[in-house]
C-alpha cells in the first residue's frame, strides 16, 4: 500500500488520449462498414448460392467466429510477410477486424433476410407494388427494424475490439495509453482514465444508435440495459 492516486500529471495527456479515441473510432467505423459489405456478399451467397459456395461461406464464418481475432491479426501481421506480403500495423488490424466482422455480420444479415415474411410480400404484390417499391416500402423497413439492434450491438463490441490495435503499435486510444504509461509510470491512473474514455465513447455511440434506430427504423434499443 502507500500508493496515492495522482491524476494531475495524467490529465495533461487527456487531449492526446482523446485524439487517440478518434483513431479508435475511425478503425471501428471502417472495419464495421467493410465487414457489412463483405458480410452482405457472404450472406447473399449463403442465401442464393449453390451447395459448394454455401459450404465455403459456412467454413469461412465458422473459422472466423471460432478463433480469436487477436491471433488472426497476429497471423496476418507476422505470417503473411513469409509470402512477401508486408502489412503496416494499421492495415493489418483494419484488415483483420474487417475479415472478422464480415463473418459475424454475415450471420446477422442472413438472419435479417430470413425474417422477411412471405405473407408481407404477398400483400405487397396484391397491392400491385413494383419490385423497387416492394424493396423500398416492405423489405428494407422490415429488415432494418430486425437488423438494427444486433448490428448496433456488434458495432459496440467492435469499438471495444479496436483496443487490440495497441498490441501491434497502432497509436489509437489504448496504444496512446501504453505510450503515456512508459513515460510516466502512472499506470493505474492512465488505464482507469482510458477505461472512462471507452465508457464515454460507447455511451455516446449507444445513444446515437438508439436515436437513429428509433426515428428511422422504429427499432427499440435501450441505452442502459
Amino acid at each position: 500500500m502507500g500508493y496515492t492516486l495522482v491524476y494531475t500529471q495524467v490529465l495533461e495527456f487527456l487531449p492526446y488520449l482523446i485524439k487517440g479515441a478518434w483513431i479508435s473510432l475511425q478503425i471501428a467505423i471502417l472495419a464495421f462498414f467493410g465487414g457489412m459489405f463483405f458480410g452482405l456478399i457472404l450472406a447473399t451467397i449463403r442465401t442464393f448460392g449453390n451447395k459448394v459456395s454455401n459450404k465455403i461461406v459456412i467454413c469461412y464464418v465458422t473459422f472466423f467466429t471460432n478463433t480469436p481475432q487477436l491471433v488472426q491479426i497476429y497471423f496476418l501481421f507476422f505470417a503473411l510477410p513469409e509470402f512477401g506480403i508486408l502489412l503496416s500495423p494499421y492495415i493489418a488490424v483494419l484488415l483483420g477486424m474487417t475479415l472478422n466482422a464480415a463473418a459475424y455480420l454475415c450471420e446477422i444479415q442472413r438472419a435479417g433476410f430470413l425474417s422477411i415474411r412471405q405473407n408481407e410480400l404477398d400483400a405487397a404484390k396484391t397491392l400491385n407494388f413494383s419490385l423497387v417499391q416492394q424493396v423500398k416500402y416492405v423489405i428494407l423497413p422490415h429488415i432494418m427494424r430486425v437488423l438494427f439492434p444486433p448490428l448496433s450491438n456488434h458495432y459496440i463490441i467492435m469499438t471495444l475490439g479496436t483496443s487490440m490495435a495497441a498490441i501491434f503499435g497502432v497509436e489509437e486510444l489504448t496504444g496512446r495509453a501504453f505510450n503515456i504509461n512508459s513515460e510516466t509510470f502512472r499506470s493505474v491512473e492512465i488505464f482507469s482514465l482510458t477505461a472512462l474514455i471507452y465508457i464515454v465513447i460507447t455511451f455516446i455511440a449507444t445513444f446515437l444508435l438508439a436515436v437513429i434506430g428509433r426515428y428511422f427504423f422504429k427499432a427499440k434499443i435501450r441505452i442502459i440495459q
Partner: protein
Amino acid sequence: MERLIEEIPNFFTIWNVIFLAKAMGVTFLLTAIGCLVGFSVGGLLAIFRKTKSIYLLPIRIFIIIYTEIFRRVPFLVSLLLFFYVFQIIKISDNLFLIATITVCIIATAYIGEIIRSGIESINQTQWDAAAAMNFSYYQTLREIIFPQAWKVILPPAFGFFIMFIKDTALASQIGVMELTFAAKILNNKGFSPLLSFGTILILYFILSFPLDRFGKFMEKKLASNRN
C-alpha cells in the same frame, strides 16, 4: 513452403506438444472458471436486479453501474488496469490469478445481463399468477421462472463462452502462459510465425467449435420445442 515442411518435425517435438497442451489447459481453465463464476454471481446480480424493495435500491444501482462499466471497457484495458492495481496493493503477483479475476469480473457482467434478459422473457402473467397464489419472489424464480427461462438463457450463454475462450488470448499481454503467449514464445525461439500462430488457431478452433455446435444444436432444439 519447403522451409515449412522441413520445420514441422522440429516443431512438433514432445516438449513443444506438452508445452502447447499445457497452454491450452490454461486457456480452457481461464474460460471455465470465468464462466462458472460468471454464471453463479451473474445469476445473483440478475436476481437482485429484478427485486422491487426500496431497501435494495442501492444494490440495484450498484449492479446497473457495474454491468454498464464492464461491458463498455475493452477486455485488454480492464486486464491491464487490474494488473497494475494488483501491483500496487501487492496482494499477489500470480499472473494467472490476476487474469482469472479479471475474466470473472467481466464474465459476471455479461452473463448477468444474459440471465436478466432470460428472466424478462417470461411473460408477466406467470408472475401475476404466482403472486396471487402467495409465491414469494424467490419461490417464483425457483419454481416457475428459471425452469422456463433457462431455454432462453442457454443459447446466448454458449455464444458467450466461445467469446471468452477467444478473449482470453489477451491475457498473453500480461504474460499469462496461455495459448497465444505460447505461440509468441515459439515464434521468438525461431519457429516460423505461420507454424506457431497457425497451430494455435487450430487449437483455439478445437476448443471452441464443439461448444459452438452444441450451442446451435440446443438453440434449434429448444426453439422447436417451444412452438
